[in-house]
């Protein structure tokens, strides 16, 4: 068998601003990849991790976070987080032997949290040494039902949604690394954002028909962080599948996927009746909004076994560009 590996590592010099696209790949194939898109020149580079480092990214890449000049790619089923230089895409370090990592959130230069699936602990990381330094135990959760997901920080508190067979938002005190409060929302909150008024938003998927955990209409929740209570709830129809809650760079408009791409003002009184971007037999899978231009990028995973495509729209919903990336583009990260 002729190998294509061990090719010379490529040298990249990425522009200062751009979009990383995390392509999950297929479960158990080990074919996750990383792409980089330069919106200035409408140029995409695929498989940049492999091309820059001469090794694969791994199995099921879940998310990426840029902190300083490093990009941290969480590769769920490889039990690893790679740190890369965001200019050259070269690896600068890695955190190994995680359980089933989902997202990484930086509390400071010295501390980061890693949420997990199938683990009732959030891992505390020293990003300078790439080492696990401790754990935050999540109450009322076993390893098997463990699920902590996206994290956002307001002041000294980090908020995290608990998703798989869960219905909670937990509140972590970053000074003590302890959970100090939790709030019950609907079944399976999928994603989490903070708006310009420091209000927390989450969107639930409602579970599924036949689930022993329950099945209900999904909903969008607005949470007052002063009182840590739900101050507004927007209910979807039973059977709908909202996900991928995003917010514009100025924190004024919410975006999500529910077959189509939807947009709503954070002060709106009701859910919108018309989508921003209609599905065209597409299987929208991932969504992001450019922090400055508010352009909308939405991925179509097609059959989840081929290169997915990213559509780039203006903030008004007009198509600007489209480009193929890797298998199952699921997450984005702005640089």
């Amino acid at each position, binding site marked *: 068998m002729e190998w294509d590996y061990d090719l010379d590592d490529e040298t990249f010099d990425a522009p200062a601003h751009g979009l990383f696209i995390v392509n999950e790949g297929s479960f158990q194939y080990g074919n996750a990849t990383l792409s980089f898109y330069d919106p200035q020149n409408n140029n995409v580079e695929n498989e940049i991790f492999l091309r820059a480092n001469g090794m694969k*990214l791994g199995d099921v890449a879940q998310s990426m976070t840029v902190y300083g000049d490093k990009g941290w790619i969480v590769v769920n089923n490889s039990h690893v987080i790679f740190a890369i230089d965001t200019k050259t895409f070269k690896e600068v370090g890695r955190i190994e032997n995680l359980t089933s990592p989902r997202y990484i959130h930086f509390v400071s230069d010295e501390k980061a949290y890693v949420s997990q699936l199938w683990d009732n602990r959030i891992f505390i990381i020293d990003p300078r040494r790439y080492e696990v330094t401790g754990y935050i135990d999540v109450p009322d959760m076993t390893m098997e039902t463990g699920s902590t997901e996206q994290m956002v920080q307001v002041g000294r508190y980090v908020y995290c949604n608990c998703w798989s067979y869960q219905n909670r938002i937990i509140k972590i005190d970053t000074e003590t690394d302890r959970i100090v409060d939790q709030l019950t929302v609907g079944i399976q909150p999928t994603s989490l954002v903070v708006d310009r008024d420091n209000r927390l938003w989450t969107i639930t998927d409602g579970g599924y028909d036949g689930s022993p955990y329950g099945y209900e209409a999904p909903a969008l929740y607005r949470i007052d962080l002063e009182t840590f209570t739900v101050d507004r709830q927007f209910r979807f129809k039973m059977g709908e599948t909202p996900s991928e809650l995003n917010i514009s760079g100025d924190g004024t408009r919410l975006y999500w996927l529910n077959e189509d791409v939807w947009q709503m003002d954070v002060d709106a009184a009701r859910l919108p009746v018309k989508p921003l971007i209609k599905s065209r037999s597409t299987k929208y899978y991932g969504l992001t909004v450019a922090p400055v231009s508010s352009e909308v990028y939405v991925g179509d995973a097609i059959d989840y076994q081929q290169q997915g495509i990213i559509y780039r729209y203006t903030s008004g919903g007009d198509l600007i560009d489209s480009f193929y990336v890797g298998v199952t583009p699921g997450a984005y990260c702005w640089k």
Partner: protein
Amino acid sequence: MIMNVNLKPILSITCALAVALSSFAAERDLKEVVVWGRRPMKEIGVQKTTFDSLALKENIALSMADILTFNSSVFVKSYGRATLSTVAFRGTSPSHTQVTWNGMRINNPMLGMTDFSTIPSFFIDRASLLHGTSSVNETGGGLGGLVKLSTAPDVVRGFQAQYVQGIGSFSTFDEFLRLGYGNDHWQFSTRAVYSSSPNDYKYVNHDKKVNIYDDDKNIIGQYHPTERNRSGAFKDFHVMQEVYYNTNCGDRFGLSAWYIDSNRELPMLTTDYGDERDFENRQREHTFRGVMSWDHSRESWKTTVRGGYIHTHMAYDYRREVAEDLWADMTRSRSRVNTFFGQAEGEYAPTRKWYFNAGVSAHQHFVRSEDKNVIQQNGDKAIVGYDKGRIELSGSVSAKWQPVDHIGLSAVLREEMFGDRWAPLIPAFFVDGLLSRRGNVMVKASVSKNHKFPTLNDMYFQPGGNPDLKSEQGWTYDAGLSFDTAGKNPLPFTLSGEVTWFDSRIDDWIIWLPTPKGFFSPRNVKTVHAYGIEARLNLAVKPAEDWLVDINGSYSWTPSINDGEKMSPADQSVGKQLPYVPKRSASLTGRLTWKSWSFLYKWVYYSERYTMSSNDYTLSGHLPEYYMSNISLEKLLSLKPLDLQLKLAVNNLFNEDYLSVLSRPMPGINFEFFIGLTPKF
């Protein structure tokens, strides 16, 4: 009364070849290597590959996955010994291949497929493939075909015993014991095999690099590590008891009972950065299969009645050590399958020209699947899973007609039901004709429409099961030419071959796709056009006294094309080859026998397999073509108290660095030595 084409000249030569070498090993039936051209009316127009006993009994370390790999045109997807091994028969999916054992279907009713790595070839006495349409003679749902496996009474008088011990690379041990007793009426046989290995072979991990750091944790170097296969250990135990009673007046009774206790780790991917000491990924299986049969034969008719039972308990555990000696479950899934089986068949041949057959079978499945333990919102514990029963009925009638000796016609009508749904009628038509007696050149053709029910997981798995799925269905056309000949000049030989063209379109192909809720769900989405050519050739030559050369080759070209609608405007998969189905494959086995020595060379080739439905070439998803060669050398010593069999097998002879499945490296060159003892009572 079975009608055969008259092939006396060929048979006399082949029998002579067999007799000349019959002293080599009592348990070997060399006749099967060289007897060709028998054409029972039952097999009019049928495309069939039969595995001879030499292939099945080559060594105790082989599973049926290995037999299919090296002796047929079927693609076996596997990532090493004692790992899930599924087949793509004529470019179809694993669940499109039906598998029967002593007439009872043994496909897992939850998944639809069969793991051929759990079937030791030493437990199978007769094995054949019925390609495409030909499977309709035996069962429905074989859109790719049928793998037909069975046990058979060993013709022994008195006591017989055989023990084989294998010792191989990676601390692999294989043990096999067979005890038998027979007289004019009774045959008893007990077989047991136990295989174990840490299976920790070394390989260069091309997918990963190890970092070298300075004191400040800066990377100062990287290299591809040489690793051992992690979490690949297995312990498999099989025991089989058979009892046969023959009245010698046309009635035969049989009982076969087979128990499996399998304990296997699931190997880690090459891209896994977990510490294997901190994770356990293990699958355990207990399976019992039993079949009772009664054959009642008379001059012109025969009836067969069978009853059977299968129990399977599967346990999958994925655990992590969270503190010293404290392991926590991450996934703990259990499944139990109980299947009751009944079958009745009748054959009637009123004249030389007519043959009728009718049969009904029933498989009643009871499945309990517990996939995940959850804590409900009120704090109570609950299980995610399903508990379902399903009856599957199949009935067929067929008529075969040979108006003249050299032409045969056959029609089969089959009706099937699953749960409370009836499939449309499955018709199949076959024709064959003897073009030339010289060389026994035959032409065969067949056509059928077949249906395959969704599996129980397809319909009920939680979450994602889709009870509204339709059956997968399609038309299949076959046409082929075969010949077999034999001669004495310049050397005694037999030569046979077959080439078959097939074409099938499968609609409503079921695939599992992710949903926005984070789980997968099956849908009827694809239309697949699978077509191609299968060819086989066999040559057996006796170059001199005590010498035998036997060569078998197969080649297949199997485009398997996504012929459906675009799933999305940007879909690039239409008109492309299905992932993990090689377009071309070939195999060759060559055996050289001299007196009590035997040398075997096995070779297989697979073209590139795509891992993406768009057939894109990417660095992260590329499986290049590969060639594989295995050899073995065997010597039989006939001593006074016993026969002693010594064998050395070398696998991956040229130490090929290859993958069959993405991120699953295969072992390099490895060895196993076998010693077999057959006492003389």
